[in-house]
């Protein structure tokens, strides 16, 4: 089966949201390896943006297949490092968030909410592979089954960005939720260390991240109360773009035209998204005009089409 990232079976309902702007890449960069990644993806954060030119170019005269296999293996190793790095930051950020939340320090918790979740959103398809963890960490209220217990980020979100008439959580409820959030995230870290990635999973994961943007972020459905959908949006794009950059050497060899097209479509989307950057983060979803949302949606679709051809181009 060509499951998207890993194992579809386990997939739980829709995805989550997003976060901070600390450039993904910056981080990654720090993380060693991937010179490539650094460049391009970095664009991510509100900041920069210019896609970078690929670093390495494919090897010389080895047989095509063997070369491709090697390129793809390298790509998988690089992406694993990216995932590792993001999960580490997610764990650290979650601990800080959970502490503030449990202490009733709402202002701090609110400020950490979206930036921390960005680490989750960047690698969402990987996290979704663990069918039990995804719902525990990232279920929206609208995704709950009758009688199901609600934990995770969005439970905290509702408490922090409470709608009118909302009954706040008690101190002890907050403590329990915070503890669970940290424990589940640490569990996620443990489990991601054992995952094996392949080039097709990278390609499909990139497409899925864009799908998430198209159905959940650009519509403002993900962050019902915090309205921080654009953080998620950026993080999903970061994750997709990182996968693309890492796959670029193989893509360059097999379909250079598609690489060029993806470069320009990623850049166009990033440019538009950057227009909504504010301070350390972004405008809230509700601050966007319908015309602005339509523009973003059109650029997501424009990227989604060629991105959906990435996998077949690198595994052919």
């Amino acid at each position, binding site marked *: *089966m*060509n*499951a*998207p990232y890993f194992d*579809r*079976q386990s*997939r*739980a*309902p*829709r995805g989550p949201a997003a976060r901070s702007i600390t450039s993904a890449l910056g981080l990654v960069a720090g993380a060693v390896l991937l010179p490539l990644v650094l460049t391009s993806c970095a664009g991510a954060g509100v900041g920069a943006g210019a896609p970078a030119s690929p670093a390495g170019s494919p090897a010389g005269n080895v047989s095509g297949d063997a070369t491709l296999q090697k390129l793809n293996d390298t790509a998988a190793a690089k992406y694993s490092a990216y995932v590792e790095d993001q999960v580490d930051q997610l764990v650290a950020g979650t601990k800080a968030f959970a502490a503030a939340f449990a202490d009733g320090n709402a202002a701090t918790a609110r400020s950490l909410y979206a930036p921390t979740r960005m680490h989750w959103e960047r690698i969402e398809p990987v996290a979704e592979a663990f069918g039990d963890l995804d719902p525990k960490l990232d279920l929206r209220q*609208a*995704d*709950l*089954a*009758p009688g*199901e217990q609600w934990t995770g980020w969005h439970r905290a979100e509702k408490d922090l960005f409470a709608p009118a008439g909302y009954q706040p959580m008690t101190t002890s409820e907050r403590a329990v939720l915070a503890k669970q959030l940290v424990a589940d995230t640490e569990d996620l870290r443990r489990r991601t260390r054992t995952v094996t990635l392949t080039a097709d999973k990278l390609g*499909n994961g990139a*497409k899925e991240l864009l*799908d998430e943007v*198209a*159905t959940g972020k*650009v*519509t403002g*459905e993900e962050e019902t109360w915090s309205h921080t959908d654009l953080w998620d949006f950026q993080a999903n794009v970061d994750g997709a773009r990182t996968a693309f950059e890492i796959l670029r050497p193989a893509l360059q060899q097999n379909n250079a035209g598609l690489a060029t097209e993806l470069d320009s479509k990623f850049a166009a989307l990033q440019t538009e998204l950057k227009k909504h950057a504010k301070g350390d983060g972004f405008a809230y979803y509700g601050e966007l005009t*319908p015309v602005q*949302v*339509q523009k973003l*949606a*059109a650029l997501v*679709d424009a990227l*989604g*089409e060629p*991105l*959906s051809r990435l*996998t*077949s181009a690198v595994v052919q």
Partner: protein
Amino acid sequence: MSQVSRRGLLSLAGAGGVGAAAGLAAGFLGHDAVAEAAGPANDTVAFYGDRQSGITTPAQDRLHMAAFDVITEDRAELIQLLKDWTEAAAALTAGRETGSTGAVGGPADAPPEDTGEALGLNAARLTLTFGFGPTLFEKDGTGRFGLAGRRPEALIDLPHFPGDGLQEQRTGGDLVVQACSDDPQVAVHAIRNLARIGFGKTRVRWSQLGFGRTSSTSRSQQTPRNLFGFKDGTSNVKAEDAGLLDAHVWVPGGGKATEAWMEGGSYLVARRIRMHIEIWDRTSLREQESLIGRTKAEGAPLSGGTEFTAPDFDAKGPDQETLIARDSHVRVAHPSHNNGVRMLRRGYNFTDGSDGLGHLDAGLFFIAFVKDPRTHYVPMQLAMARQDTLSVEYLQHTGSGLFAVPPGVRPGGFFGEGLFTA
């Protein structure tokens, strides 16, 4: 009621040389060619009978369904409405105009009784199927129309399902009318005229057009395709399966006396399901097939065989994975994973314009008839919302309704009569 069929009326007008009829007659001839292919006797579906038509009737090509809120609280007015609708339905399904003077036979200074857009068209196998929603019986805990205590237990308030994005203006309703026909104009004409008859007593709460059937309900029919491009209806419960219909679709006798009026009826589940078709179209063929559990070309199960071969959920490929993925739609919906339950599906493809973000607002208007939604719908929908990746990633339910569909009508009777007399 006009006694002449719409076609007969026009033929007469044409023969009489009435100038104004010429243009109409031309259109009429065009349709007649189609009618001939079907054979005149096949134009109409019997209206009276033990069961309502539009359930096991071989699924027609088009749908117009409408749910209504009853705005009067007067029991007598409600009963009169049901009588008027029954009378109009008998005429419409026979290909006649509504009212005693029809579309053009009335006084020139009065608005015509029938709206007229079906003049010259035959009945195109029109069926009209009526049902009662939970809110007809009680609203905010108070009984209505003297029906307190009469609401069937199976007519539940559907629970919230994970991922639901139901819109108030597409959900619920006191009454429902399902109009199915091979001609969309005929189906719309029927709903429009019933809505018109209801003015002052009802108002349209929501209405849905379906342009193509996504199900076959008889072995005589070819399996159609839904908007994901897959054959749909392959392993549906069909008109020929009398035993399955009794076991899964018709409400059996022997229940509570207060629910005897539902015996021989059924429950209609309606779900407006938006399909993210743009994203689907970017999904590889292999993934699409794996999500459904069947091949796209022929609709055969991925475990092998042809369209009507039974799926083998244990068959494994060389990689030791099951050939039919565990999260595939067919596996999650199959009776072997649902306590043996079946349903009669009768849905339609729809597109309602666009979503304002550059996509078609398209999907499947899911309709199913079951004998009890508590056992035959809710558990399966819950399983799908959780385990079926098709559902989780590519679908969103945006509208919903559950209705008690009483048994059929005898000449002189009216829909749901047993509820008001017994």
